[in-house]
């Protein structure tokens, strides 16, 4: 088997790419995709540790992360569509008012 550190480093780099995406991009959809990228990076770390320790719990956690990510995407995209309907924008800098 490959050394686990190589998977973990890949996971760290992917997570950082997601962080950069959230911090740098202003399009709400791209920010959202970057969050998915970070979730996937942590999933890779969980699966690596599950293999490393020979324990199935890591994969069970990934199962739950995937389920919650699906819910999060559905609700988040519904919110983005709703904001677009009322403001005609998906730029996160343009959504800076507390009132609707």
């Amino acid at each position: 088997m490959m050394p686990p550190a190589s998977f973990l480093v890949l996971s760290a780099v992917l997570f950082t790419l997601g962080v950069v995406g959230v911090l740098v991009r202003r399009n709400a959809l791209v920010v959202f995709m970057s969050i998915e990228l970070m979730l996937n990076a942590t999933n890779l770390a969980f699966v690596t540790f599950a293999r490393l320790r020979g324990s199935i719990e890591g994969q069970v956690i990934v199962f739950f992360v995937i389920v919650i990510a699906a819910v999060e995407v559905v609700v988040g995209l519904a919110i983005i569509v709703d904001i677009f309907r009322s403001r005609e924008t998906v730029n996160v800098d343009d959504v800076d008012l507390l009132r609707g």
Partner: protein
Amino acid sequence: MELIVFVIAAAAALAGGIGVIASAQPVRSALSLLLVLGSLAVLYLLLAAEFIAVLQVIVYAGAIVVLFLFVIMLLHARTGEGRTEKLPRQRAVGVVLAAVFLAVLGYTLLTAAAPPVREVARGFGSAESVGGALFLGYVLPFEVASVILLVGIVAAVVLGLAKPVT
């Protein structure tokens, strides 16, 4: 053999990750995300996680990316990013902070003492073994997850309802 597969899949994942954050058009970001998810499924197979790999393809690649593509096409008018910056230098600061973050993560990963890799039995990571753990040890979280899914469906319907014009 494993090394070749790992190198190709890791390179594809990194290229996709860069594509997600660097593409000018959201559609290209979504397709790059698909590339990342597909190559991660390959890596899961290398790590003896068959069931998770299948789940990744079905749920992430099959459902989540398609949902992203639908929304991008729904909102295709004016999805570009404006030239005006409300927070000057935010990009530079963000990149620097992310680099520091990566340095800390990398230092921790590369200096930590790695425990020896355990041998796993045949069938580790199959649908049977994950399902067994799920239904024997984690029934309550599983049921709670189903409730969360239901809440998500209801929330999406309520948010998507046409608002009465006021």
